């Protein structure tokens, strides 16, 4: 699978927590995921949502998604049109939640990706191309369990297909 889009980074790069991704001010009262998505990363950059074109990427440093188990965090990223999050590492609950929703998380070195860079990810070859900087970055392969969940389109369709866990 080939993913193409632009990089979106915020000033804070490490330990971006789920409160930053979607604030408790919204997540506890808004049920419509498209409405929630309008507030994605708002506390770090009030204009974050308006800069996204469908298919773009969020790019960050270490421990992206730490904090609360709120699934509204990956939901608001997905419904904002982001096709994958790229970071050096991810927090555990957020990691599960994203693959459960069919949203791929790319683990690789992100030091050479700036805000606005054009990126292309070849998931089959495990390569991220930074078109803007003419660089190739190797990405960590998905564990088998996560690959299966992604191929099935997330846990809901996986669960229905296998009538339970088919992992």
């Amino acid at each position: 699978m080939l993913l193409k889009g632009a990089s979106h980074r915020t000033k804070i790069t490490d330990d971006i927590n789920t409160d930053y991704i979607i604030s408790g001010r919204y997540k506890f009262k808004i049920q419509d995921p498209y409405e929630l998505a309008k507030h994605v990363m708002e506390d770090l950059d009030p204009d974050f949502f308006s800069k996204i074109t469908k298919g773009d990427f969020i790019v960050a440093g270490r421990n992206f998604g730490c904090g609360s188990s709120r699934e509204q965090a990956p939901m608001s990223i997905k419904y904002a049109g982001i096709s994958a999050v790229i970071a050096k590492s991810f927090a555990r609950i957020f990691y599960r939640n994203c693959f459960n929703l069919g949203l791929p998380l790319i683990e690789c070195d992100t030091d050479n990706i700036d805000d606005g860079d054009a990126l292309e990810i070849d998931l089959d070859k495990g390569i991220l191309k930074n078109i803007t900087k003419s660089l190739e970055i190797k990405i960590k392969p998905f564990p088998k369990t996560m690959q299966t969940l992604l191929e099935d389109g997330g846990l809901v369709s996986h669960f229905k297909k296998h009538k339970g866990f088919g992992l």
Partner: protein
Amino acid sequence: MGKTIAEKILSAHSGKDANAGDIVIADLDFMIGQDGTSGVAIDVFNKMEGGKVFDPSKVAIIIDHSSPSPNEGVSAIHKKIREFSKAQGISLFDIGCGVCHQITPEMGFVVPGNLVIGADSHTCTYGAINVFSTGIGSTDLAAGMISGKLWFKVPETIKFQINGKWPKGVFSKDLILKIIGDIGADGATYMATEFVGPAIEDLSVDARFTISNMAIEMGGKAGLMNADKKTIEWVRSHSKKTFTPVESDKDAKFAKTMEYDVSKLSPQIAKPHTVDNVSPIEAIEGLEIQQGFIGTCTNGRLEDLEIAAKILKGKKVNAGCRLIVAPASKSIFIEAMKKGLVQTIMDAGGVFVTPGCGPCVGTHNGVPSDGEKVLSTANRNFKGRMGNNKAEIYLGSPATVAASVIEGKIADSRKYM
């Protein structure tokens, strides 16, 4: 090769010889959701064509995050939860019952050796009573409610050996803040943690919950402790379920072991805006605050209110400062009233809100203003956490908060002991 607590519990619940790194599908003993996560879980349950919950006696939903509802959006989610709980015959703890992580052990739902999931990141709290419990998202909770199972990657374990004698005015909160400051917000990502040693054995079960509760703040999947005599007495006084405690083997393989001596520990403060930004009290005392908050799944228990009341007795909350208290459960609130703690804290100028999460998650009950500094006993100080991204949140023990609201600035609780 010996096994850790995590490997033993995941082996027993999956029927496999589970070792760190393995993927297992395991049977769940109990699962919970709260009002911030259960609305989505119910939607996913229906999308998965869940029909009936696998065993209604093993599922509970607790309305604690925004309770009572502050607006119509939350009210709609609460209504959805009430209707689902009634239709499925599962336990519902409605407004005012308390925080999910106090209710679940207090009601005796979980006992040593259990495997438990919760759609709340602080589900790791029950590790203090020897339960492998971990936070998951709403979709995982839906799958668990339907099948009674979930897949797990068996984690490696970091062992924390805690030695020494507790100095007066230094508490389990100070220790866990110190550890998180040392290891960092991702220092235990995807790993279980075990806390052992004489200083852990000296703590009450209430104080132990505080440590396990914050394992997630270093990325941990579980915050485990052995079940000693105190644990067993505590669990027997809350639950009729039978259980077998689980301990790590002497030759179990740990990812690493870290040793601490609490004798030399001073009160600790986590500064804005991350939990691992920790300083000893000496480096920060004197900083003016406008609000103190005592409560949450970290520090809203009876012992916490006792410590605060003892410091506040006969004193007044500073004129430039407010004190908000949210007991972690209704039964704690009632017990605190019987003991006169509520009267003492109110006489000093403290304000009580409904048992539950209180102002911790930023939906109600004390949203700070722009530029205000809050000192809280909660587990998170992320920017915007309490509902205003222009406020600053500091974290400390109930003793530190009680001492600080008297002075209107961050204060060393040891001088009030």
